[in-house]
């Protein structure tokens, strides 16, 4: 009997020590993971766009491709070659037509090429400020920072691993002033089409400080084209049939008119519009590559359509840019005119910006300003947004900012 108990105790202690060993092994193994949380004190929020665009053609095959690497507070060696930086934004490619409210769209991309900064970069991003989700803005150190852009070859090798002679080509080396907890967009621009001079434009955004309604959609406009672009000969400009009337650029001062169409099922620029929103004057836009002034936001109601139910709406937008004195009532050009000397350009904003109209018109394509997405029990639910439409040389870009919205319930 005594022996038996001894045996039992032995067995017990054996299994106990085995567990202990396994547990300590587990602890030991998991102890190898060291999580380092990075933190930036007093950050500013920055989003960077490379508006220098290029096309691959026979005539431009020897031109330098503006495929860049961005450095904030770089460390530069004696030869002027960057050897490190506080913040590096590598593989900065030309900007895409649509900059969406969330960086999620590029999360599925398999390419390293980044259409904006932070874009695909895994960095600390902005918080939700006054309801606006700033996850497309990176946290950067505030104060006076040195910012540098270097040309890099179009491949997948990170900048600092490139051969030394490929790191010397600096496009821009300048300083910018960032105030803590402010929201900025930084644009890399061509400022003169003839001399090819480039520069940056730092704009301090104010949308998060304005009393904006969530039943109105807002939009403002910029023309950041280079000097002399619309005047230049068509043979010097890239051809892109998707940009239709925008290819040749638009004149330095334009008035913008909004038409709101009832339904995205009608892919026709002659289809029914919402009463009061057929060629409604919205804004005046002047070419500006120098001063960082925020253009005023114009708005239109989210629930303007007849069948609007307060949950989802199917309206789409068309913006016509005319020279002063011209509007949709006295427009002398036929609807499909795409080369009118920059007097009239237009853009249709519907679906995801990939669906063209079936009618013969001259509009470029961008996504709908309103975001339709599954939220709560509603799929889709339509949300009002704050938008910026930027015209740069022969291209037009849309940036959409959205408020935080309720998560979907499945």
């Amino acid at each position, binding site marked *: 009997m005594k022996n038996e108990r001894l045996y039992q105790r032995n067995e017990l202690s054996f299994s106990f*020590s085995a567990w202990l*060993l*396994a547990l300590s*092994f587990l602890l030991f193994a998991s102890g190898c993971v060291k999580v380092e949380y990075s933190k930036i004190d007093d950050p500013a929020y920055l989003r960077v766009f490379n508006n220098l665009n290029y096309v*691959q*053609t*026979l*005539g431009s095959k*020897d031109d330098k491709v503006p495929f860049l690497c961005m450095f904030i507070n770089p460390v530069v060696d004696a030869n002027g070659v960057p050897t490190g930086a506080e913040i590096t934004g590598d593989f900065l490619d030309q900007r895409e037509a649509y900059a969406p409210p969330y960086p999620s769209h590029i999360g599925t991309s398999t390419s390293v090429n980044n259409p904006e900064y932070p874009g695909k970069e895994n960095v600390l991003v902005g918080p939700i400020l006054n309801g606006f989700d700033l996850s497309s803005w990176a946290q950067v150190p505030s104060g006076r920072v040195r910012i540098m852009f270097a040309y890099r070859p179009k491949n997948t090798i990170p900048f600092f691993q490139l051969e030394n002679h490929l790191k010397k080509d600096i496009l821009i080396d300048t300083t910018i002033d960032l105030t803590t907890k402010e929201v900025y967009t930084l644009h890399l621009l061509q400022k003169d089409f003839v001399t090819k001079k480039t520069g940056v434009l730092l704009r301090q955004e104010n949308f998060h400080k304005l009393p904006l309604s969530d039943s109105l959609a807002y939009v403002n406009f910029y023309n950041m084209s280079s000097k002399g672009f619309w005047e230049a000969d068509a043979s010097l400009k890239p051809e892109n049939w998707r940009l239709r009337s925008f290819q040749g650029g638009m004149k330095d001062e334009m008035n913008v008119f909004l038409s709101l169409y009832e339904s995205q099922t009608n892919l026709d620029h002659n289809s029914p519009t919402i009463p009061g929103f057929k060629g409604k004057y919205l804004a005046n836009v002047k070419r500006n590559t120098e001063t960082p002034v925020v253009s005023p936001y114009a708005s239109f109601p989210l629930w303007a359509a007849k069948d609007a139910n307060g949950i989802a709406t199917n309206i789409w937008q068309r913006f016509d840019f005319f020279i002063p004195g011209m509007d949709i009532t006295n427009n002398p050009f036929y609807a499909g005119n795409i080369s009118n000397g920059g007097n009239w350009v237009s853009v249709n904003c519907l679906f995801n910006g990939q669906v063209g109209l079936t009618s013969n018109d001259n509009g470029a394509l961008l996504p709908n300003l309103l975001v339709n997405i599954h939220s709560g029990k509603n799929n889709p639910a339509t949300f009002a947004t704050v938008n910026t439409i930027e015209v740069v040389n022969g291209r037009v870009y849309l940036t959409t900012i959205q408020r935080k919205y309720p998560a979907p319930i499945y």
Partner: protein
Amino acid sequence: MALCMLLLAACKHDDLTVAAPNENVRPAGDFVKNNYEMRLFSAALQKTDYFSKLNAAGPFTVLAPTDAAFNALGIYSASDFDKMNQDSLKKVIGYHILPRRLRVDDIPSNGIDVRYTTLEGSDLYVSRASFNPNGGVENETYFSGAEVTRTDVQVANGTLHLLGSVMKPNFTKNIQQWLAERAEYSVFVQGLKKFSLWNQLAGQGSFTVFAPSNAALEEIGITSASIEAMDINKYVGERLFGTYLMHHRHFFVSDAQVFSRINSSSNFEYILNNDSYYMTFSASKAYPTFKLAYWVSIRAGKGGFDPVITSGTGDIVAKNDNLCSNGIVHHMVTALLSPAQAIKQ
């Protein structure tokens, strides 16, 4: 404890027997020697001592022109190589070998003028059409203008691509020296000299020159004697002879072909230097030979109503794509503007 035992036991391996690698795959040198489509290239390798090198460790990429490609240059037997300057031959053959393994998949998609260093020491240019952005797969590769007709032949110490023509690098020789050496272009050279267009061809480039042969110029009434008799004040020189020169461009004929695949546009529009005349350069595979050919057409202006005044072509692949230090020279079989079309108004 049992877990630890398992972990320890996992470290023990029995000796494994791995099948011996196939030793019958020949190295690049032997492969070329034993292939009847590359007899002339093989002869050139042996003549230039590259043969033994190509049987060494490598890795190499061999760009092997076919016998037909050499025939097009007038080389029909191994003895024809004896007549050549051996140093030049060695450099040109060295230009056809890369000291690396470069499969077609290693070349960037739709890469234009991607440069790789050759065994000779200078760079060659690779252009490759892999896809059309509007949809569709493409598959054309050109090394310094020479088309690859068979890709990715694997040899023991590298890879081999078959070329449809011989690459024609001239290394440090500039366009002026190249033209001066060739009697075939003597009338063209005389015309360039007469209208003070000659000296620039020794300078910094880059240029693309469409060199009309003497026979081509004679057809439109330009001969050595007629140039001698010309009054330079009566003619627009930049038009009469400048029309064959493209400044600040270096185009292989294949470039236009590659862009027609990847960009749906093979045309290049160019305003003549110091003149208002307008040139359109394009190239494609000509029917019915399906060999690369280029066309140049001239109009008085770039307006839509300006008709084509004249056009010329070069469809002899073996005579195009002469890569010089400051540009590229193409042979032209039909000349462009006659003296009457270039009279000063």
